[in-house]
């Protein structure tokens, strides 16, 4: 196995320089999610306006996969409509469940395709999904 396929530069970059990792004081929904098996935690603030994701900010502790994934997600989904964000999230979930058989739709997922390698490591899929699940939860609460 080539570890570089898992730890792509995009991931390590996001890990070292996470985007939107500073909780915005105003938000429409705040959620706190944990990964009980490893102890990773995330708090995510979401703002919506007229069916559009106007802001995602977050804070948390976790491994490079979970941190990079939420960083990428926050960049990617900001500015999208709720419907678009849901569709992208669905695609990302599908990619994670692909057991290494898919590369991901780069047009929709952009940087998030760098996480494709995670799908070969069942124990890490939850890391990659932590932020996305938090977003999903927050978007339900905010609507």
């Amino acid at each position, binding site marked *: 196995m080539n570890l570089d396929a898992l730890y792509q530069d995009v991931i390590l970059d996001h890990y070292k320089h996470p985007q939107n990792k500073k909780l915005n004081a105003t938000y429409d929904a705040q959620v706190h999610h944990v990964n*009980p*098996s490893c102890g990773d935690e995330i708090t995510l603030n979401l703002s919506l306006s007229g069916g559009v994701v106007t802001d995602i900010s977050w804070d948390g502790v976790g491994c490079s996969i979970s941190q990079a994934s939420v960083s990428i997600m926050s960049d990617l989904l900001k500015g999208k409509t709720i419907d678009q964000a849901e569709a992208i999230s669905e695609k990302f979930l599908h990619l994670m469940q692909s057991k290494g058989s898919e590369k991901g739709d780069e047009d929709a997922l952009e940087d998030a395709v760098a996480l494709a390698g995670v799908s070969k*490591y*069942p*124990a890490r899929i939850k890391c990659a999904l932590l932020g996305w699940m938090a977003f999903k939860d927050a978007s339900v609460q905010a609507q």
Partner: protein
Amino acid sequence: MSFDALKIRSDFPIFDRTIRDGKRLVYLDSGATSQKPRVVIDAEGDFYRFHNAAAHRGAHQLAEEATDAFEGAREIVAKFLNAAIDEVVFTKSATESLNLIAYAMGNAPVGNRFHVTKSDRIVVTEMEHHANLIPWQQLADRTGADLSWFEVTPDGRLDLSNLNSVITENTKVVSLTHQSNVLGTINQLGAIIARAHAVGAVVVLDACQSVPHMSVDVKDLDIDFLAFSGHKTVGPTGVGIFWGRSSLLAELPPFLTGGSMIESVTMTGATWAPAPRKFEAGVPNMAQAVGLGAALEYLTNVGMDQIHQHEITLIASLIAQLQEIPDLHIVGPTDLADRGGVVSFTVGDIHPHDLGQFLDNQGIAVRTGHHCAWPLTRKLGVPATTRASVYLYNTEEDLDVLVKGVIDAQRYFA
């Protein structure tokens, strides 16, 4: 392909051994526990040989493989019962499964739909195995709830004539066996489930004697919870199943607490993972779960309907032959409708323990005693019975040996 019990028997290594100085093993005690095919023994061994690690607890390859094997077994069980994967909980036995639901209900706080108080009622039947009676007695004791039961008719069926006065408006749970391990009676569930659901009670099915022997579809049956044991299902010892409707498992509090069933823990409290994890505290019985998966796949390959048909054919023949024997009295229904592969009987004044010993000396394994259904035995007015139970590896020849054995015993103890 026609059903070939002799060929099936060759999949079970234990039949290569002999009993009491060279006699062929005639195993008629599958109601107590079943024998294991090679594929099950190997599945358990191979787990240890190739994939052993703590499932759900490691980021290394072995832990991934152990998790896959364990969760793969859950998928097989779900498919076997026509259930959703997350509805399947691994326990150590049906006994644990039944204690799980009884204790978990006892843990339910005010406001939870499972909360039990002294104005509630718990309903069982007179033909329950101790495992589906005492946990409910204990829950009734702890909560002050009333324990009521359906009686058994002289011919060994449930007396449902008082259905509405047994399952009252305040009934919280109805727990009963699918097939009696003493009488062979297969209980007809429709009216009971309809009434239970009408009053808002949940229905728990003790499927120990049905899941191994016929196809059981939890959706079709419209039950709420189900329990069975791996060791009676050609599977390993040390594993059982607790199944529950997804929406109900979400509300049911946990039973055993500890590692892997939590969401978050502090020194003063904890929150729970979603089902099934909430009900599986600790490093699970992984090798046994995997063995059970192999067992259910083995049974599926043989065909559950074929197995059931084979047993019915055998039991019809056995009942007919036993009825020919003077002084032999069959305890339980003799008509074949809704009847499984278990026959209990008494033989004149011969105590079942003596009969069992005599048969054992011929290589025949039967069970004697109250079969962990002591209240039923008392009700039937016998101190004990002898029980023969058949499974996929039994043949007509086994029955012939048994019938001859009974007749010889009569002569011996005359």
